[in-house]
């Protein structure tokens, strides 16, 4: 009965909950490392037992940036697909296969990192060399995620066969866009790991072409951030309107925004390599222009959100220029947490445009400003939206209800997170503008006057980090409570509808061949010439370095 009402069978629920468990265990481990990092960086705390700073930083980056995100996203997307287009038993078996392959890979890599054999940070830049098992583990994670891609593609394909001529459900469309982008971009990271890193770390080849490896990494690395962001956008576009009692602003606009993200997220990796010698500045320029194209769907999204809020408010009878603002369900954590995520995206987006601007990149490159930036985008916007999703998704999966207690705790958690992040990310931004480096333990740089300017901000980060860690503990309690303790009942799986009498969505938006074609052409345009140039004119490759960090 529960299954009928919520639309998720017991079997689907068990699958998705497994992904949620990995997510929240990762949050605890990764968060603890984050706290330790901020403490080390004050200069008043040393890691015990000979643990290295880069070891914990690798744990933090890999487990939060790669593991937590991927598991939450794939689990959430399975829930969305099961709900909107259904999941057959066979598909569910493959979905479990993706879970186990990813988990085995994660555990293998994690063991290597914890043994200090892979302190190469989550970007694993050559020539740092980790133990080969670390790279094999990463390969498993990616292959597991590919299985999930194909399950999702197959789910939509089957639905379309049964519903000839109909539009795919909006959320299913969005999931498939995200997984398409993920599949296309992970080809790059798979290529560098399989062709370059694994043979080199096994000692089969002596040298690695560093610039090629970094270029392939960032071909993957920028779409990676959109892989994190798009599931948050799914919730904003297609779930939040339901929670606030309204309708989707425009189905077509939402689909168009997602298509633009698919097209413009990949041919832009050079914006992470602006200070890398060996890439023709002309092609850096072209990719920066393409990067700025992503501002279009981002602003479409901002417009769409405000419009949803305003229209819903006016329909409820709130008038005046901003009267509609008051109707929003400020006391409902399912709204409040993602909404605060949206607010954080305003400074986060502003920072992103700054980072991508060639000249200003020189001001902030490799400073802790960058870390401050993605703790706003990823660790606030995306994470608060994921938490907001969790408050209804986990009860739906466990057959329980959100009660008053969990709502209050959730509101508290959101506020604690915002306060903590204000201090931590704010200090990071300011210290970065003063030149403080990212990815570095404490040092006074032999009494340098410039380094002395940073110390106040290092304390600011530690204060923010401690508050954030309290936020993590509250969130974990919330997760346990919703899993085991909350009152039994039926919680709704909120999915918003398109407004009555809206124009039908143009069919061209679902012309997959067209959009994939444009994506591939644009990638070929942005990468072929510079990539050939990089390969032909590279300096000699580098032998591996296992020391001072890496595999020491």
């Amino acid at each position, binding site marked *: 009965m529960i299954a009928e009402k919520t639309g998720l069978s017991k079997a689907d629920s068990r699958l998705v909950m497994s992904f949620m468990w990995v997510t929240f265990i990762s949050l605890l481990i990764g968060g603890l490392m984050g706290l330790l990092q901020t403490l080390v960086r004050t200069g008043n705390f040393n890691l015990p037992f000979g643990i290295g700073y880069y070891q914990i930083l690798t744990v933090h980056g890999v487990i939060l940036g790669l593991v937590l995100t991927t598991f939450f996203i794939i689990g959430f997307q399975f829930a969305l697909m099961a709900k909107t287009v259904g999941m057959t038993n066979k598909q569910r078996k493959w979905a479990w296969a993706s879970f186990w392959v990813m988990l085995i890979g994660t555990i293998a890599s994690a063991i290597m990192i914890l043994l200090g054999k892979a302190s190469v940070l989550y970007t694993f830049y050559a020539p740092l060399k980790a133990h080969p098992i670390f790279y094999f583990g990463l390969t498993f994670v990616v292959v597991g995620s590919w299985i999930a891609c194909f399950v999702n593609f197959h789910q939509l394909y089957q639905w379309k066969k049964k519903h000839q001529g109909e539009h795919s459900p909006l959320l299913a469309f969005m999931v498939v866009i995200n997984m398409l982008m993920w599949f296309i971009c992970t080809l790059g990271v798979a290529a560098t790991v399989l062709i370059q890193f694994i043979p080199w770390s096994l000692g089969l080849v002596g040298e690695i072409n560093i610039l090629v490896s970094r270029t392939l990494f960032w071909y993957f690395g920028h779409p990676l951030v959109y892989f994190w962001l798009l599931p948050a956008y799914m919730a904003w576009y297609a779930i939040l309107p339901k929670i606030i009692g309204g309708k989707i602003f425009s189905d077509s606009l939402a689909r168009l925004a997602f298509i633009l993200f698919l097209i413009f997220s990949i041919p832009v990796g050079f914006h992470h390599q602006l200070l890398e010698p060996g890439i023709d500045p002309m092609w850096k320029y072209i990719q920066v222009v393409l990067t700025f194209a992503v501002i279009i769907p981002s*602003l479409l999204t901002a417009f769409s959100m405000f419009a949803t809020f305003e229209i819903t408010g006016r329909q409820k009878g709130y*008038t005046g220029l901003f009267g509609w603002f008051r109707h929003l369900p400020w006391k409902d954590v399912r709204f409040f947490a993602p909404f605060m995520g949206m607010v954080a995206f305003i400074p986060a987006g502003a920072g992103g445009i700054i980072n991508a*601007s060639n000249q*200003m990149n020189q001001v902030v490159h490799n400073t802790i400003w960058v870390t401050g930036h993605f703790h706003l985008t990823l660790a606030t916007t995306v994470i608060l939206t994921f938490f907001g999703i969790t408050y209804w998704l986990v009860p739906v999966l466990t057959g329980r209800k959100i009660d008053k207690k969990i709502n209050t705790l959730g509101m508290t958690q959101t506020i604690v997170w915002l306060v903590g992040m204000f201090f931590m990310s704010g200090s990071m931004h300011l210290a970065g503008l003063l030149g403080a480096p990212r990815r570095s333990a404490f040092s006074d740089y032999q009494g340098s006057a410039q380094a002395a300017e940073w110390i106040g901000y290092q304390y600011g980060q530690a204060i923010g980090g401690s508050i954030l860690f309290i936020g993590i503990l509250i969130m974990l309690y919330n997760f346990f409570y919703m899993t085991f303790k909350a009152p039994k009942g039926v919680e709704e799986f909120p999915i918003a509808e398109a407004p009555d009498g809206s124009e039908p969505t143009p069919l061209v938006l679902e012309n997959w061949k067209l959009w994939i074609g444009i994506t591939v052409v644009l990638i070929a345009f942005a990468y072929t010439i510079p990539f050939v140039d990089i390969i032909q004119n590279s300096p000699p490759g580098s032998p591996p370095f296992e020391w001072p960090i890496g595999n020491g």
Partner: protein
Amino acid sequence: MPSTNLKHQVEQEHSSSEPNLKGTLISVSVVGGFLVLSWLAVFGLFLAR
């Protein structure tokens, strides 16, 4: 309540109603302005260094 009146008028003119989105226009303009200002601030820093 001028804005609701306006909405009514518009509703009568078209068969489907055009929603009043003035608040949205102002909100997105503020966001856009913030993006430009923060960009200019750091660009100033770049020029100053």
